[in-house]
């Protein structure tokens, strides 16, 4: 039940994001061109959700913003799952001081206030590494890297716990006796058996990443305007609460649906 509800929510949002160009053709406007004669317009047929402080169509910006926000969420979750699984498996396999060191590192990252550190990292001038500045793609890459650097912890702890349980099973001993290398034992035998908990952790990581991206963009450190993301739409909407309170409703609702979808998906997967 939860599983299907979550999948339906995420599927709906994914389809909406993919349909953005068609909606654009249908409405005959685009999400980037300002129209200063029609600022803060209420919902009309031409602008189903009204217009923002520069007269841009809010529905279109929401749909194109969905592409950015969902892409960041998925990219971070995949990156965090990859890094976290590798670290978790390494810790479980190596044991001893290496295990202790990696897990203390994870504990420390969990105990620190993440957002102030994200703010510090997000303010770093990526131009010094030769990356282009101010382009949407560069922003996405920067945010994804930073969020993966913090996001792997949850996955790593889950992967380690699950792998430790699997490593004590007989089939692992059998594989070793059959002469499988340690890498093969971990990747070929243990990994497929911990896919369940990993899937739950990934779904939760998507939820966390969407929330974190929106927060950073809201603070002006994530995706830079004019490229739309749900977070930076809320940031400009906040300054307009007196003029257009409704503009603050839609992006938040979109975030709520996406994150709730991931949470339900994770809950559903866990109960299987």
């Amino acid at each position, binding site marked *: 039940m939860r599983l299907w509800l979550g999948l339906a929510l995420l599927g709906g949002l994914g389809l909406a994001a993919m349909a953005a160009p068609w909606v654009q053709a249908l409405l005959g406007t685009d999400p980037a061109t300002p129209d200063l004669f029609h600022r803060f317009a209420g919902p009309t047929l031409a602008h189903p959700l009204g217009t923002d402080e520069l007269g841009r169509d809010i529905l279109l910006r929401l749909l194109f913003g969905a592409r950015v926000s969902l892409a960041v969420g998925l990219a971070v979750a995949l990156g965090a799952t990859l890094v976290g699984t590798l670290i978790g498996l390494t810790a479980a396999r190596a044991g001893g001081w290496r295990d202790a060191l990696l897990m203390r590192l994870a504990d420390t990252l969990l105990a*620190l*206030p993440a957002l102030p550190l994200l*703010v510090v990292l997000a303010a770093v001038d990526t131009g010094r590494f030769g990356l282009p500045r101010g382009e949407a793609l560069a922003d996405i890459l920067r945010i994804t890297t930073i969020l993966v650097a913090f996001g792997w912890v949850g996955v790593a702890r889950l992967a380690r716990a699950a792998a430790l349980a699997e490593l004590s099973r007989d089939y692992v001993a059998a594989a070793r006796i059959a002469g499988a290398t340690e890498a093969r034992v971990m990747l070929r035998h243990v990994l497929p058996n911990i896919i369940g908990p990993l899937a739950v952790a990934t779904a939760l990581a998507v939820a966390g990443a969407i929330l974190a991206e929106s927060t950073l963009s809201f603070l002006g450190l994530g995706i830079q305007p004019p490229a739309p993301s749900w977070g930076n739409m*809320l940031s400009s909407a906040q300054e307009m609460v007196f003029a257009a309170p409704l503009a603050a409703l839609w992006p938040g609702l979109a975030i*709520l649906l996406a994150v709730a979808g991931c949470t339900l998906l994770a809950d559903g997967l866990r109960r299987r």
Partner: protein
Amino acid sequence: MLLLICGRLGQILLTLALLSALCWGAMGLMPGDPIDLALTSDPLLSAADQVRLRALHGLDRPLSERYLAWAGALLAGDAGFSRLYAVRAAAVLWPALGSTLVLLGWALALSAGLGVLLGVWGARQAAAGRAVDALAILAQSMPGFWVGILLIILFAVGLGWLPAGGTPDAPGLLDSARFLVLPVATLALGNIAGYARHALAAMQGELAAPYIRTARMKGLAEGRIAWGHAFPNAALPPLTLAALDAGSLVSGALVTETLFARPGMGKLIYDSIMGNDYNLALLALLLAGLVTMLATLAADVAQRLLDPRLAG
């Protein structure tokens, strides 16, 4: 226990040292050094002057050397000056910490109190339990700043009952409370959900245990069973959450204070990083990290004191 505390304190110090080095490095990579900033306020500064000024203030030295000099001065008790406020960095820090602790204290008390109440209520009635669970998932999925914006729209813009942000002009108790209501509510709403879900799951587990049936058989009142028997055993998961949650509370404070323009640690960190006020930013970050880790340690110790199974 003493050994545990000493070990953890050592770990905290090590973390702070690493954290300061990391942040120092990150700030060295941010656009604009102090002389660039001086140039924006005095465009007549010649290139030769810039070189001379950089040498005078040691900005031409490598990053690592500057870090060691800064760390040495900090250990000697000199945290330097704040660029934005033009006073000693420490002088800005303490009032901000006080303001944040008030905000966090109320938010924590409110969210833990209400969350546990909701969880216990939900565990005693199946229908209420499902409602609490659904509402909690919904509340956890809302970004904190969005909740804040909605509260501002409702209570400040629409109804006009409460201020939309800032601080009172005169330090009266009633006025301060009025300015505190919306930020505390914003911060607490997201956290209530976590406490409610943990308390709900723990209470449901305890209420299904055999000793509860025994208590019912003895003819105890349901309220007595829930609060007197099940709750003490179910209280640990919410406490664990409180231990793990100190960091996210401080993160939440950054967003909430920025949104409501409250002069606390979170806004201070944000403003000082945005304003290239590196001395203040570093000091505030370290203090925020220290407070968070100490809170986590305190919750851990409390947990061990309350649960004999963990003490050994």
